[in-house]
């Protein structure tokens, strides 16, 4: 077991093996977990909004799915990760409240997940598993020893993906 490194909201971190990267209480935000199978270098991002090009103030790259993915890969490559060995897992993107009218506010979780998939696909990074959607929060832990992503919830159990 390595160090436990916390990733906050609108935040991203990369680390050498051994490490556990964790982010607590993901709601409509999306957690993007990257793992290089060869070097065991890991990265985790907790992004809030799908698209940086639609927002004026974009000083924090980790806030947006598109720029978070790019920056996280850069951070991992700096540590020596091998680009074509990186795989991805996704969690989060829940709809926490069920409003009858499907306002934009309510679909943000789904849009975050869709944006993450599109971005990873454009970079040829395979998504090997996901635990997304639903109406509940998730805490996730990414283990550098095997790339396993642990997903914990209140009332919806614990699973490994």
């Amino acid at each position, binding site marked *: 077991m390595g160090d436990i490194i916390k990733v*906050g*909201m*609108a*935040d991203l971190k990369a680390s050498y093996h051994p490490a556990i990267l964790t982010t*607590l*209480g*993901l*709601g*409509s*935000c999306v957690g993007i977990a990257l793992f290089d199978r060869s070097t065991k270098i890991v990265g985790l991002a907790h992004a*809030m*909004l799908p698209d940086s090009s639609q*927002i*004026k*103030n974009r*000083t*924090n790259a980790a*806030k947006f799915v598109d720029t978070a993915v790019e920056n996280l890969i850069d951070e991992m490559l700096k540590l020596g990760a091998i680009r074509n060995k990186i795989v991805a897992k996704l969690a989060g993107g*829940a709809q*926490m*409240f*069920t*409003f009858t009218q499907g*306002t934009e*506010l309510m679909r*943000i979780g789904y849009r975050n997940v869709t944006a993450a998939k599109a971005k990873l696909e454009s970079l040829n990074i395979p998504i090997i598993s996901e635990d997304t959607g639903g*109406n*509940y*929060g*998730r*805490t996730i832990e990414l283990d550098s020893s095997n790339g396993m992503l642990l997903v914990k919830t*209140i009332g919806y159990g614990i699973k490994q993906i």
Partner: protein
Amino acid sequence: MGVYFDELDNLQIDVLREIGNIGSGNAATALAKMLNKKVNMDVPQVKVLQFQEVSDILGGAEIPVVGLLLSVTGDISGSIMFIIENEAAGILVNILMGRPLDEAITFDEIEVSALKEIGNILAGSYLSALSTLTNLNILPSVPELAIDMAGAIISVPAIEFGKLGDSVLFIETEFSEGSTKVVGNFFLVPDIDSYEVLLKALGVAD
């Protein structure tokens, strides 16, 4: 264009604090009427936090909380959220239902509708204070309720704030009844354009 919280000056923060004060003062009065008890309120704290610190608001991102979300329409649009820890929600429900304060609650149908009613009254009286203060027409919807990890619930208003800047603004209010204290947090999240309408109506924006 929109207002960034990161750029709010002291005067604007003071005005928001005053809104919080009057809004939650009204909410405390409404709560007292509903409970038929004397409810005291501490001076509300207006807090501006960076996203990374947000999860510590209620004692940790994984703490189970009750979130009540109402959408707002009229001269401004957006949403208002009231968040309390599960334990505090239990106390409110027990007071309302005339049960011992420490009785465990299971969030059954009756308890959930009691909480929604509390949310209705708190948010409604908060918004009516804001409406009086600004002369704006502000109408709340019926509340939606979710019980989950604090971080996950807070992500909903945080994402809206994320469109404006890199911080979240909220108002922490402590209500007490006798020796029982309940801490609640109000997140008023106007849409980007509404924020300007609001500050203009209050005479603190150009």
